[in-house]
Every structure is written in C-alpha cells, then in structure tokens.
C-alpha cells in the first residue's frame, strides 16, 4: 500500500473513532500539543493512560470483591479513571465512569458490578482502536510519509 492510501485509511479510521464516540474534542487538543520537539506526545500520554487504567480496573475488581465493600474507596478509583479518560478524550470510558459514580453514591453493589463490566468493555474497545491507530501511523512513518493533521471541520 502506498503512503497516500495509508494516510487516507488513517484519516478515515480516526474519523470513525470520533463518529462512534470513542474520542471527543479533547483528543484533538492532545494532537495540537504534539510537534517536532515532542513528536511522541500523544503515544506517550495514551500509553500512560492504558497502564494507569489497567491498574485502576484491577483495584476496582478487588475493591468490589470484598465482604464489606468500601464504596468511598471504589468511588475514588472511578473518579481517577474518569479524570484520566477525560484528559485524553476517551469519551465512552468517561461516560461509563459517570454512571458508575452514581451507583457508588447509591451504594448499589449490583449496579457497580455491572458498571465495572461496562467500563472494562469500553476500555478494551478503545485500547484496540488506539493500537490500530498507532500501528497505522507507524506504517506511514516507516514508509517515509507524514501523519496528516486532523481536519476538525470534516465531521
């Protein structure tokens, strides 16, 4: 596949991530902060998010598995996850966290368990999407091309 085709594929893929609600405007802000002096900024921040979130999801699973669930603790973890997903523009994860926090407030264990599943699902979905995105970018760069800037008005 030649560079032009790869670039078009990347643009379409990124656009679909926005259309399907995986990403919101905050991700565009991240891309704007990337430049020649910080060429890997987006990858670095998103990778940090993955590492951070996997740990949080493990902590959440553990916290909800206790005899006496400490809902405040669970809420603190979800708050953190909500914050970091919001910071990178992972909209669907963030929205799932909002619902999760409501159940924490109500101390509704079943609701929380359901939300945890939902958040995990959204997390792995967006992680897969990002893996594809970054692979496409790497292929373009390896072929000597450049990553096209996002056209904000195209959707």
């Amino acid at each position, binding site marked *: 596949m030649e560079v032009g085709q790869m670039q078009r594929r990347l643009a379409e893929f990124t656009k679909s991530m926005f259309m399907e609600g995986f990403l919101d405007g*905050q991700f565009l*802000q*991240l891309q*704007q*902060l990337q*430049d020649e002096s*910080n060429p890997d*900024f987006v990858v*670095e*921040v998103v990778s*940090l*998010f993955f590492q*951070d979130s996997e740990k949080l999801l493990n902590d959440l699973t553990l916290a909800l598995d206790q005899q006496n669930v400490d809902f405040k603790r669970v809420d603190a973890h979800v*708050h*953190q996850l*909500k*914050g*970091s997903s*919001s*910071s*990178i*523009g992972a909209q669907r994860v963030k929205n799932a966290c909002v619902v999760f926090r409501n159940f924490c407030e109500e101390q509704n264990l079943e609701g929380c368990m359901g939300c945890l599943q939902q958040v995990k699902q959204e997390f792995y979905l967006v992680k897969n999407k990002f893996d594809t995105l970054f692979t496409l970018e790497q292929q373009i760069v390896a072929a000597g091309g450049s990553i096209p800037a996002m056209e904000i008005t195209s959707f």
Partner: protein
Amino acid sequence: MKSVGSCFPNCQRFILPHQGILIPLSHSEMGSHLKIDPPPCSLPSSFFSSSLSFLAAVAPDRTPVEMGVTAESQFHVLAVDDSLIDRKLIERLLKTSSYQVTAVDSGSKALEFLGLNAEQARNSHTTSVSPNYHNQEIQVNLIITDYFMPEMTGYDLLRKIKESKSYKDVPVVIMSSENVPSRISQCLEDGAEEFFLKPVQLSDVNKLRPHLLRGRSKEQHPNSEKRKDREEILSPERTRTRYDVPEVF
C-alpha cells in the same frame, strides 16, 4: 545570556537574518553575557529565547549554558497534580506557552519545593524533588494546582501559600474535574486568581499570561521607586550654586 565559544557566533548567525541584535554586555573567559534586542517581527520573543536555548545547549564544548534573555526572561510555573497523566498534560500545555515548569505530585511536595515545609522535608525519606532545607525563596511566578488530591487539597495549598510571607503575592490557579459552584467561589474568595475546569486546554493556559505579567510589573515597580529617590537626591546638587555656599536642607 551567557554563551560559550562557538555559541556566540551561532546565536548571532541565527538572530541577524531576523534583524535582531545581539549585544554583548560583558566578556569573560567563560563567555559573554548577551542581551538580545528582539527583532521587529510577529514572532514572540519567547520563540527566540527557546531557539537560542537550543543553540546554546548544543555548544560543542558541552559546558552548561545559562540562558537569561534580558528582553523577556521565562516565567516559572509550579504545577501540582496527583495524576501522572494530568501532570504530563499541564506540563506540555505550559511548555508550549514557553513557561518553565516544575511539576510535583502533592501539596506537601509543593510546599517542600517552595521551602515552606522545612520540618516535613527533614522527616520525609522519599523526596522526588530536591528538598529546600534552607528556606530559600524560589522564583515562582504562578502556581497551578489540582483541587482534589489525597492528604492536602488544592484549597489547603492555596491557603498555606497565601499565609506565607514569601509567596502570598504569587498568583494561584485551581483546576478541578468537578463543576461545584460553591467550591469555585470559595477558592476565588480566598485568593485564587482563576478556576479551570478539567481537562485544561490551551485557551485556559492563555488566560494565565495577564496574571504573570501583572506579577512581573509589581516586581519591577520597587526598582523604579529607588531610581526616583536617587534622582531626587542628585537634583539638589545640580541646582547648588557654584559658590559652594553651604545649604541647609
């Protein structure tokens, strides 16, 4: 700006095409102290200071070079946030705006850095920031802190800063992911200049500049007063008559 050896000609080669002027203020064995007259163009002087920092940093003898552009020296911002991702983000946002950044992960680390928490610094075993044992006043032009942090909230930090002698005039900005009007007004009432909702964006960071510039003009004001006093002392001498008649003041 102090430059070394081949750095000066390199800086000169960079700035001259832009019609800027490099003025040596002093020469020494270790290098020259230079002043930059920013060129008359639309690029901000911060562009030149950061580009020249780069040039200076790649000086062949690898001597650490100090860059202090007297035309407009960099503002130093202390960022406080317990989230690693948010810290990285705010650091990038601030650096993009050409600010010098120190980022710490807690209120107590911030106080330690500022030298306001000497007691705690001596007792703590793990410090990722070089502890300020001697209560030296650090040059900080703005402090931006997250609200919700374990142990010490951004609000608590705000209070402590406003109570300190050295830093009470430093502008403080609070960030939060939650839009709680009572929280916002409480922070603003107790001295915070701005309250940003997370995720913080470039447009928010642009709002910081007037606070920083105001702080800078306050710093410069005491100097201009001293100059005025000196002039007042001089002028009676100038008006003294040539006959040297002693005048009673």
